[in-house]
């Protein structure tokens, strides 16, 4: 038997490495398959059905009629209301959540931090409905709020107060998640950087804005987008706190499905809401990447 030359041995070796790498890829993909299948069943399947419903004219016919409702005044009005209040709530939750997270990491003793973290996590264990009704009892119409709003010449059942209440509900919903998401990124910033800036003559706030905030900015935007996505798809909060004055698109979808037997229009609205949310998220990400490149 002729011994293998050096060159052919190298080729064999490469071939076996390729085979091993291929097997690894297959193995890795195999590990993903169950999760992927679950994702397809739980998310992909219902989404396909929803898309189908939105284009269905019955008896297997196709129509775009249901998408006409997206050009109606009611949809436009509620979409603007949804985007406006969600954006306000997301910004409020992100800014206040960042300040709390910053305080917990930089200012608190570890004992106090643990107490705070337990309190924040325990909020997440409390049903959202209970939290919403607690807000309604505190800030809803009643002698106290009548007195407080009366000082500003307003009524507790006015639109402005209702919108404020919905924003408070959304902030209440998203802020614990914002705080918990920002703790890690803030902790990863070396505190000595700020100390160095201050020792070189920068004022505290100057150092904070130019170092801490600047280094946290990408995370802040990511968390803000997450909060915004949670707000934009909120249903329960506007339903309970909105007094019938403030409805989000999700509430319109619910009415179409559950109250006026118009599932096809509801499906079209749901698809539109999904696409608008994706558009907003990817636009912000694109802007960030572009800015980073510059």
């Amino acid at each position, binding site marked *: 038997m002729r011994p293998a030359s050096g060159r052919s041995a190298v080729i064999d070796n490469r071939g076996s490495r390729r085979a091993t790498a291929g097997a690894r890829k297959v193995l890795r993909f195999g590990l993903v398959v169950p999760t992927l299948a679950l994702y397809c069943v739980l998310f992909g399947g219902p989404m396909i059905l929803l898309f189908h419903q939105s284009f269905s004219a019955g008896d297997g016919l196709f129509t775009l009629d249901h998408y006409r*409702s997206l050009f*109606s*005044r*009611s949809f436009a*009005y*509620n979409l603007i209301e949804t985007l406006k209040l969600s954006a306000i709530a997301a910004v409020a939750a992100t800014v206040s959540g960042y300040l709390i997270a910053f305080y917990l990491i930089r200012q608190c003793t570890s004992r106090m931090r643990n107490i705070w973290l337990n309190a924040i996590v325990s909020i997440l264990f409390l049903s959202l409905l209970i939290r919403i009704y607690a807000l309604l009892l505190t800030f*809803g*119409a*009643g002698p106290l709020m009548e007195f407080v709003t009366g000082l500003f010449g307003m*009524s*507790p*059942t*006015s*639109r402005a107060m209702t919108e404020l209440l919905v924003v408070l509900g959304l902030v209440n919903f998203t802020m614990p998640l914002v705080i918990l998401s920002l703790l890690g990124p803030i902790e990863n910033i070396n505190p000595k950087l700020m100390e160095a800036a201050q020792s070189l003559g920068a004022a505290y706030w100057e150092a904070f804005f130019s170092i801490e905030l600047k280094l946290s900015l990408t995370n802040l935007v990511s968390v803000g987008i997450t909060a915004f996505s949670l707000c934009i798809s909120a249903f329960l909060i506007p*339903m309970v706190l909105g*007094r*019938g*004055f403030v*409805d989000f698109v999700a509430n*319109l979808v*619910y*009415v179409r*499905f*559950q*109250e*006026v*037997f*118009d*599932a096809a229009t509801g499906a079209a609205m749901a698809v539109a809401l999904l696409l608008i949310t994706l558009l907003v998220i990817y636009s912000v990400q694109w802007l960030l990447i572009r800015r980073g490149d510059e």
Partner: protein
Amino acid sequence: MTIRSSSRRRFLGSTALGLIAAGPLKVLAEQQKTLAAVEWGGPWLDASKALLADQGQFDVNWILHTGGSAAIIPKIKASLPKVRFDIVHSFPPVTYAMLQEDWLEPLTFEDIPNLQDVPANFLSKDAQQRIINCPTSSIGAFWGYRDDLVEKPIKTAKDLFDPKLKGKICALSPALQSGRFLLALAVEQGGNERNIDPGFEMAKELARIGNIGRVAKSDVDMVNSVTSGETAVAFSSLPTWSRIAQNQKVTFLVKIPDSHGMFKNFISQEEWVLLKGAPNGKAAKEFINWFISPAVHERYCEMMGILPINRKAAAPKRLSFLQMTNDEERERYEYYPDYPYISTQLKHWNERWEAEVVPLL
């Protein structure tokens, strides 16, 4: 300690024993089947449960309506061809929608003898003129207000525009109570189901001046709003008003001579309907017959604070203000909406409400 070894023979033996033991249990289960009944929550459920507590014939699994009653339609549709519910406590627009889908089992006087004591004008029929509902009450919706929160008594529709009522009116979403809130406003302005524009104009004006303090999307919303004092004036059905009147003094605006039409009793009815292919059809018919038998029905109406529909049952004394003594009164103070027509318009009314009224609130 010994561990018993398992064998195929032992397994087969124990399985056979299990099957023999399960036989009588199956017979027992068939004797008292659990009915699946869709019911409204709150006073409806409380009253039905109280009635059932005193008997041993029926076992009912209550499934609650969520949101508007019409929400039951997609739920039934989603489970087809399997029928998960036996009977649904419904009211005309929803019954009509179910009839359109051909979901309703006809009912006969043989199956439900007590149905013969219900006035014929309350019985709905399918295309073959077969009865498809069993009414359980004549139930109107009308205006009312809390005495302690309204300074000046309300006597005409104009009073609703009083600046002192800023934020004090609880409006109803068009999807709720079959759009009767809008209809009442339209009737006041000379309109009706087929001419709802005047109703929208009046709703817009009330919204514009800020007198609407809430748009209720469920009966519970309305009860909570008025009971808590968030709002003081509302339009709703008799059971919800009865619930509020338990704790607060309420004035009902039903027989108001100066009104042009808004302060009427907008009549509807509640009814059991049996679904085709119901798992316990026979037991469901027996239950319906029992439910409207004079003694049971009288007790139900007393608890609910509603008017009976069975001629042999007496009306609660406290509801005398709703009883019309002659046809002239009936003509003047009662309104029988055209529910089949309304059910075709609800989607459009709802869209108009969202587009025209909500932005003004």
